[in-house]
């Protein structure tokens, strides 16, 4: 059963097209993350779903109903904002009750819903406080609670964790995931943080300039990005890209400078390949030292910078004149200036047409 469906959604501000004919179907109980850099239109899309922006063309369905022209409060959604957007002059309880009061719900029903939400989010002791007296994490819990009490099928999150510090962000992230498992609501979640996207999402939609680049599971997006943009956007540190030529038709090679990478193991999507291509390999798919020699491809590189990050270490090296990053175990005793052997399996790589930037 589809929970939220977006058909040919277009949004224009004057002559500027902000969202271009988008189509998304979100299943019931699905956790969809809209991911992209700032200005890509992801928050705008969320506001359209919520009904806070009037769209220029297309349709929006929620729970099977056409809500394209429906008021936000009647769409059956709850929304959580980046800045929490708590009403400063109301207590936590007042904040939770405000929407319900507007819907003229009976008092006892309001009370029981608040009690339930407070229990779920463990904010019972805070109910009488004002937002100003809460910490950032507590505020965001209350903001989630405000969506919760509405007892709706669809939750919309607009970068809810961006204002929190790293530690709290990780905690609340888990909590949102737990909440999703427990409530099984449909959730649409906007973020620019790929870790959040990868950890939370059932599916991720990567957006750029008002267009969805790829809509798929985190695994697919990570391992099989459909284009150069998605490949570069996902992963931190980012994928290594090397520009070069593909030679041969069957078991071809990728050539750049004096290096040749055999592509026999690479699963090409189609038979005809352009000459000019970009080869991408993630730093974490590179092995080094003795293990490197076991890989289908291996070569020597010179280390420029070593960045120990605790659990692992990021190494910046030079591979035949190109900058090349790879990740090694945190315990590896590497140092700048050293020469080392690295290797990887081209099957794990991604190769893109240099002109169209699409995956080959």
């Amino acid at each position, binding site marked *: 059963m589809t929970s939220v469906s977006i058909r040919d959604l277009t949004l224009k501000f004057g002559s500027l097209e902000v969202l271009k004919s988008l189509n998304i179907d979100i299943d019931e109980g699905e956790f969809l993350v809209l991911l992209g850099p700032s200005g890509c239109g992801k928050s705008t899309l969320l506001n359209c779903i919520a009904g*806070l922006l009037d769209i220029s063309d297309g349709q929006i369905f929620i729970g099977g109903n056409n809500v394209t022209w429906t008021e*936000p409060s009647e769409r059956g*959604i709850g*929304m959580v*904002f980046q800045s929490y*957007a708590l009403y400063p*002059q109301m207590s936590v309880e007042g904040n939770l009750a405000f929407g319900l009061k507007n819907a003229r719900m009976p008092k006892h029903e309001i009370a029981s819903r608040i009690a339930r939400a407070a229990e779920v989010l463990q904010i019972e002791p805070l109910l009488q406080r004002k937002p100003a007296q809460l910490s950032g994490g507590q505020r965001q819990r209350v903001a989630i609670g405000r969506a919760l009490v509405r007892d709706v099928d669809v939750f919309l999150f607009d970068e809810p964790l961006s204002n929190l510090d790293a530690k709290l962000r990780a905690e609340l992230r888990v909590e949102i995931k737990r909440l999703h498992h427990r409530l099984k609501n449909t959730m649409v979640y906007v973020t620019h943080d790929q870790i959040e996207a990868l950890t939370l999402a059932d599916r991720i939609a990567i957006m750029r300039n008002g267009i969805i680049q790829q809509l798929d599971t985190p695994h697919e997006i990570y391992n099989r990005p459909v284009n150069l943009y998605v490949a570069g956007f996902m992963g931190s540190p980012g994928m290594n890209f090397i520009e070069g030529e593909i030679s041969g038709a069957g078991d071809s090679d990728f050539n750049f400078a004096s290096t040749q990478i055999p592509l026999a193991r690479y699963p090409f999507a189609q038979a005809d390949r352009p000459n000019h291509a970009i080869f991408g390999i993630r730093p974490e798919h590179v092995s080094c030292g003795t293990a490197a020699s076991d890989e289908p491809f291996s070569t020597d590189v010179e280390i420029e910078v070593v960045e120990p990050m605790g659990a692992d270490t990021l190494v910046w090296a030079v591979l035949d004149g190109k900058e090349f990053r790879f990740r090694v175990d945190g315990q590896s005793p590497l140092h700048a200036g050293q020469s080392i052997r690295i290797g990887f399996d081209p099957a794990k790589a991604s190769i893109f047409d240099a002109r169209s930037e699409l995956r080959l």
Partner: protein
Amino acid sequence: MTDATTLATRPVASTGLVDGPRGGKPKRAISPRNVFIYGTLLLVSIYYLLPLYVMIVTSLKGMPEIRLGNIFAPPVEITFEPWVKAWATACTGLNCEGLSRGFWNSVRITIPSVVLSIAIASVNGYALANWRFKGADVFFTILIFGAFIPYQVMLYPIVILLRELGIYGTLWGLSLVHTIFGMPILTLLFRNYFTTVPEELFKAARVDGAGFWGIYFKIMLPMSLPIFVVAIIIQITGIWNDFLFGVVYTKPDVYPMTVQLNNIVNSVQGVKEYNVNMAATIITGLVPLFIYFVSGKLFVRGIAAGAVKG
């Protein structure tokens, strides 16, 4: 816990201090910078306080002393007679009741005018900031244009308007006039203030099912105290001090205090009684001054919120 951390920390042995700057930087109370700042501020303060001082001192002197002495000298013999005269017995035409006659009229004019003008301007600002609709900017521009129209120019058109509405000469008519002429600046301030309210708050309220008025009364109003204070002060000051509208659009039994002030100051009976004029001037200004001093801090906060963003 603390013990553990201290123990775990590798102690760094002190290697001793060498000569040179050590510890907190010494601060001198009388630095050239402070002398400059406070000196300038004191000088400026004298410029601002001088007229008030002259007003008060003069109002406490008798006429002979004024004629002889200099205006900055404190009174040799303090007399409250000018104050009594200004308040209770100064004459204009046949009425010798001083300013007291107009005081309550001013109150009766000011309160409804302030309430009406602020109510309308705040809703305007709110609609302009949060519910933009097509053409709103055009109307707002015209409104700002209105801020530049000298009142005198609009006297006749307003007379015609009030007559057509059938409220010429009534208190409501006067309140309407104050509302109209207060609207440009107030709307500007309110609009600027409401645009500083986070948009997400407004969105959250819409998701919560609150409409135009619901958001205004339940969300915006309770968090706008500072800007309301600014608006109230500006309006009370303006309306209380207004002379032209008060005299043109009402009649003698509801003339505001400023009409009496004008009469006292402009009815010269022989010599100008500067002391009475000054006392009358201070008395007339007391209400706005009082309100201003009571709410000075909120005023600055409100101004900050109403002017910074635009």
